[in-house]
């Protein structure tokens, strides 16, 4: 099955990249853009893993490896596979 994990800074944490992109978009004339947050996305292929197993495995991997729980939060979803 394929899962997607989105990792981004907690809302309270400064996001210099997002801010810089926002400013750039403004100077380029995209005034409608009022805020930008930048994060990471991971797509993992899991073999021989049931949905139930994934529900334990994916958050564990996200917490231990993909995200830094001190400053980042994550969300995940199953893209395909039962």
């Amino acid at each position, binding site marked *: 099955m394929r899962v997607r994990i989105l990792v981004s*800074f907690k809302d*309270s944490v*400064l*996001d*210099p990249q997002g801010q810089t992109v926002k400013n750039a978009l403004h100077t380029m004339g995209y005034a409608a853009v009022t805020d930008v947050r930048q994060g990471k996305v991971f797509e993992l292929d899991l073999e021989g893993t049931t949905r139930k197993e994934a529900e334990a495995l994916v958050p564990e991997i996200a917490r231990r490896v993909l995200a830094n729980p*001190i*400053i980042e939060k994550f969300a995940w979803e199953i893209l395909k596979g039962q």
Partner: protein
Amino acid sequence: MIDRSLLERHNLTEDEYTLIVELIGKEPNLTELGIFSVMWSEHCGYKSSRVHLKRLPTEGRHVVQGPGENAGVLDIGGGQVIVFKIESHNHPSFIEPYQGAATGVGGILRDIFTMGARPIAVMDSLRFGPPDDPRNRSVMGGVVSGISGYGNAFGVPTVGGEVYFDPCYNLNPLVNVFCLGLADKDKVFYAKAEGAGNKVLYVGAKTGRDGIHGATMASAEFGKDTEHKRPNVQVGDPFKEKLLLEACLEVMDRRLIVGIQDMGAAGLTCSTTEMAAKGGMGIVVDLDKVPQREAGMTPYEILLSESQERMLLVAEPGKVAEVQAIFAKWDLDAPVIGEVVPGGRARITFKGQVVVDIPVDAVVNLCPAYDRPIAAPAPPPPAPALKDLPLPADLGEAFLAVLASPTVADKEWVFRQYDHMVQVNTALLPGADAALLRIKGSKRALAMTLDCNGLYTRLDPRTGARIAVAEACRNLACVGARPIGVTNCLNFGNPEKPEVMGQFEQAVTGLSEACRTFGIPVTGGNVSFYNDTEGLSIHPTPVIGVVGLMEDIGRAVTPGFKAAGDAVVLVGESFEELGGTEYLKTVHGLEAGAPPAIDLEQEKRNQDFLLEAIEARLVRSAHDLSEGGLAVALAESAFHDARKRGCQVDLEGTMRADALLFGESQSRVLVTCRRKDAGRLAKLAASRGVPVRVIGRVGGADLAVTRAGREILRVPVGTAYRAWKDSLPAYFKIRT
């Protein structure tokens, strides 16, 4: 409303609270209490260290500004000054290694450019637990990329440093960052708010709920519950810092401001009250004008936030528009948030209400100083009498083990992640005994190094501190530079423990003794107490940064062997000492014994001789003997040159072979010179009361050592090189 638990959460004692009430003539409100708690924290107030630091020598002919300002200032002639300091960011780097180290770099950079100096060099002194533990590797990996990520983007070269490994740093790594800046003597700025009616401007990043109580956290013991104490970790923005640098230097260059102060620990609180106190003025601030990143921040949060990349400026009303225009050029806002007023009080308003009204003097200058109880430091574990210490069957094996020990092994894995060449000044890259930076438009150069062997200081704080200063100066002498100033970062345990205070008192004694012998002033530094996690204290680790000046960069000397046939000369005397050595630690698993003895007067003579010999062009290479002793010094001298020449050395004496090879007797330097110059070198040494001996010559493919003709060591340079070179990277290889 202010009860015990509230005081505890603010790391204030009841006596301190009583004193506060007395000083401000009222019960402080919560915000005012918060202000005192950070300004009177160990980190900002130097409560436990002040009485001892007074003993350090601070006078010297180069000194323009000693301790007390953001950084020390030394006159290097030619109308220029250098501004330098070292700072610790230990606790934040343990909580979040990358951001902790990155913001550590950001903080020290601001300390330097807030004085009008452009940072031209950074060095980092790092301490971790052994790298075979993956947790230590991830801390180290994070710290190194954090320093690299921030320093490289900002555009300052990281030209040197040191990395040590010991289990005592498992849960409490040390991350000390040194920065040196260059400025015109007549353009140095201070953190002073002068002139009633002058405007107070806020520049840089918006204020968020970042690192609130970082300063107090850095002043409290670590424990399992740090999780909960954990402040909102700060994320560094090196790009914004670079914009700040250019904008600040531009307004200072055009003399548009009266004073300037970075917002470091204790952020807005510290900068406003300190600037007012230093200027002998008062200050009014309207918090509604402070740019805020998050909604609904309280005055308490705004004032104590430690958001990075922020500065406070004071400018005459007539200059404000010009200042703001320059910041706008660099895409930065510079709103006016307050004004300098007479009367020495800080009056801070929020939504029309006065939320703080206190005398700045009380906050900044009247923090109590404690002469804490002192106990003799715990005696070192006794080393077995040398006669009971087995001599390794194979000294070659022992040699390779010492070369591969993480503390001795090559550090390129670390420093090649640092841009150490940007600004095109770095004449001696990492790998030499000291970094050397040319001063553009002159023949002169600046040399710098960081040093401390924490095991020595653990075994004997006073001797260890003396050795740290001596080794740093020796590193400078090896490249041909004279020391002109010292900064230091004193990393210790919990000062409320008498034996920790004992270590501190001893180390400061050793430090000031050594500085006096070398005639170098201490222009500033930093104290990091409470490096205890779960009750365990780190080795007392007084990291010493020494800066040196070289009149003619053309004379600079490197450690590498230069030509086959050159004479190998050992400067200084060797004793049968193995206590505290890297050899004892790696080969025998002992952190024990007394560290090597040091005679400061002899050390000084040896260094002066070396400098004189280099001046006279008698020296082709020089490398100091430190961890791993003579054997490692020979190896590193072979490794440093691309041709990897070996050497053949013959030693005399009846000393044990391992002490001969790996002993760390002090004041020694390995020098090579042309055969024909050996006589002159020896004559000069004799006339200066310096023991030197020609011990062999450069050449061959092996590192070979005989004693009275009998071989005690023979290892191919290539084999030794791989052991030394591959050790650190091997720990970090990702297996596929």
